[in-house]
């Protein structure tokens, strides 16, 4: 069993360190922006200055998780769709505009995808397994699957999360690289998963990625059937679209709340978790991540038995 011990999100919602996301959730307003915590609580001021949004979010959300669980993380698995875009673009500008032999290395150093997980390990002085996955819109799911594998292997306090950041340049790629009508946003969600139930209220029953997704309905049914359940058993469907809106259960298009970033399905996991706080009768929540055509990330979350 993969019990969710704690979960934190930093998004365009006022989501950080909230008891229940559903009580603060609202559709994105025209002037929406990332709602950042006071990062100084988590990151020394000197370090903070050189850290991009994605790194700040990743470190703050992970540290907030570590504070809430007794055990030091014995495994860290992070997903990111496009990685550290701010520093990548900054370094691209540098190499195209700065002449001479002296280039500042900071942006380059912080441009690699695993700067997020690396900074988390550095900040927490954590020597455990440390992995970074990137698979476009299912980056969170592949990271979560690794985290669940770590639990299967006996790890007791596994950090699983995802982060992505928006840069203005992305707007130019709407319709070529990225098909979405949602605004580009930034966000990070980190959760601690363990085989010990402790005080948790919900667990992840299964997570799967599917790349032969020409028939999403059949794929979703097969995924659920393998877990002895079906679509009509889902009390909540969180989808990156409306294709499954008519399947009876309560349905939300999660990008309406998070805006678009590749790993936004991690925020959907947080929404699913808190749904059980909000709805005492609810038992199952299904996340259908169909952000990208032909690709599916499916995550089934269930309330713990009393």
């Amino acid at each position, binding site marked *: 069993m993969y019990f969710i011990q704690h979960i934190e999100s930093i998004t365009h919602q006022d989501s950080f360190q909230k008891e229940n996301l559903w009580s603060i959730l609202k559709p994105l307003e025209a002037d929406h922006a990332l709602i950042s915590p006071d990062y100084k609580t988590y990151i020394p001021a000197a370090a903070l200055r050189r850290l991009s949004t994605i790194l700040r979010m990743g470190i703050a959300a992970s540290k907030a998780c570590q504070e809430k669980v007794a055990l030091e993380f014995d495994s860290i698995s992070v997903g990111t769709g496009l990685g550290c875009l701010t520093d990548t673009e900054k370094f*691209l500008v540098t*190499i195209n505009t700065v002449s001479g032999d002296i280039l500042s290395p900071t942006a380059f150093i912080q441009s690699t995808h695993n700067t997020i997980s690396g900074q988390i390990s550095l900040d927490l002085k954590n020597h455990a397994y440390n992995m970074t996955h*990137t698979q476009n819109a299912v980056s969170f799911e592949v990271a979560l699957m690794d985290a669940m594998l770590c639990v299967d292997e006996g790890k007791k306090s596994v950090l699983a999360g995802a982060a992505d950041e928006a840069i203005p340049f992305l707007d*130019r790629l709407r319709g*070529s690289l990225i098909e979405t009508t949602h605004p580009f946003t930034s966000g990070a969600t980190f959760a601690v998963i363990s085989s010990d139930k402790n005080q948790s209220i919900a667990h992840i029953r299964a997570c799967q990625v599917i790349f032969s997704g020409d028939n999403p309905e059949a794929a979703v049914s097969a995924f659920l059937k393998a877990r002895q359940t079906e679509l009509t058993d889902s009390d909540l469907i969180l989808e990156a679209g409306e294709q499954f809106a008519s399947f009876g259960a309560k349905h939300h298009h999660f990008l309406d709340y998070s805006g678009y970033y590749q790993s936004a399905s991690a925020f959907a996991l947080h929404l699913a978790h808190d749904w059980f706080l909000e709805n005492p009768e609810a038992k199952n929540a299904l996340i259908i991540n169909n952000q990208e055509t032909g690709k599916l990330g499916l995550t089934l979350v269930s309330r713990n038995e009393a």
Partner: protein
Amino acid sequence: MRIYVTGYGVISSIGENVEETLISLRSEKTGIRQGQKTYTERFKVGEIRWSNDELVERFSLTQHASRTALLGMIAAKEAFKGHELLADVKTGLISGTSVGGMDVSEIAYKDFLNGETDDLNVYRNHPSGTTSEQIAKELGIDGYVNTISTACSSAANSMMLGARMLLNGQLDRAVVGGTDGLSQFTISGFRSLMIFDDEWCRPFDETRKGLNLGEGAGFLVLETEETIQKTGKKPLAVLSGWSNASDAYHQTASSPEGLGATLSMKGALSIAGLKPEDIDYINAHGTATPNNDLSESHGIKNVFGNTVPPFSSTKAYTGHTLAASGGIEAVFGILALNNGSLLPNLNFSQAIEETGLTPVKNYSEGNDVKHILSNSFGFGGNNSTIILSKV
């Protein structure tokens, strides 16, 4: 349960396939030379001579893509040659890359910066995840696809994840490895870190000044015992151990005492159920930077004490191929196991004073090589070790 290697493929500056690679290793011939591209011409690099278009034609690839994806397709195709897609063999692909499609997107972005029209479709090739999807498509794999991006340990981590997913029953067969094409972004990045050697790199040498970059890809096919019964494949080697640990010391530098390296080597030995004295050869990460080689030497001494087995870095053959290095060096490792080879650390003359370790200096065959340990260390203190064993 054992994890078998049933296929391997490689491309780097020392060869376009396994056979050519072995010839170069045997003849102690480096692939590093003065760069041929505008952004490499000032440096010594392990460049593959063909342009992207030439690679597509030469290797009969079905897709035009970034250099990282193309090199990955070439090595993965060689590894998967003779393997069939079977309905009852769940096959996944896990590839490691550090820069993904940067070699093509950086050209479009430069046009954009210069106020010229950039081809927006080029950016489709940029995401690292896309490079793996393109490689998977080239092989016809549409099951699980994933990309590991932990800088220079990416390929090692892909192999490790593949093995773990096989053991866990999530996959029956996995094509695993890594790929990185050279880009101006990478060249400038390492230049900004001031860790290039203008001469040929000298891993583990007292006079080492820094690294030479390279490019390439290396892939393995992993299968369980049960899968082999179905596929009838003959195992080339056993992937017997793996481990990843975090150095948690500095974003780019390694800890002086080699803590992360020590943890990853010990972890891999533990998974393999082997003792340090069982290791017959170490293929070190050995980038030839002053920091890495000293830290890794300390790590090796921490694990192996005063009886360090024959070891070497093959980076002086290929240059540092970043996310591909673990995959390329795994192929070297399998060649060493099956030929009883000890691979030389080219350009070595003088041991590091502080550690006194002398690597293998000349190529030899016919040695008793049963277990090989291979290190890959990346930015962010990401330290990985795999162990390959004779079948």
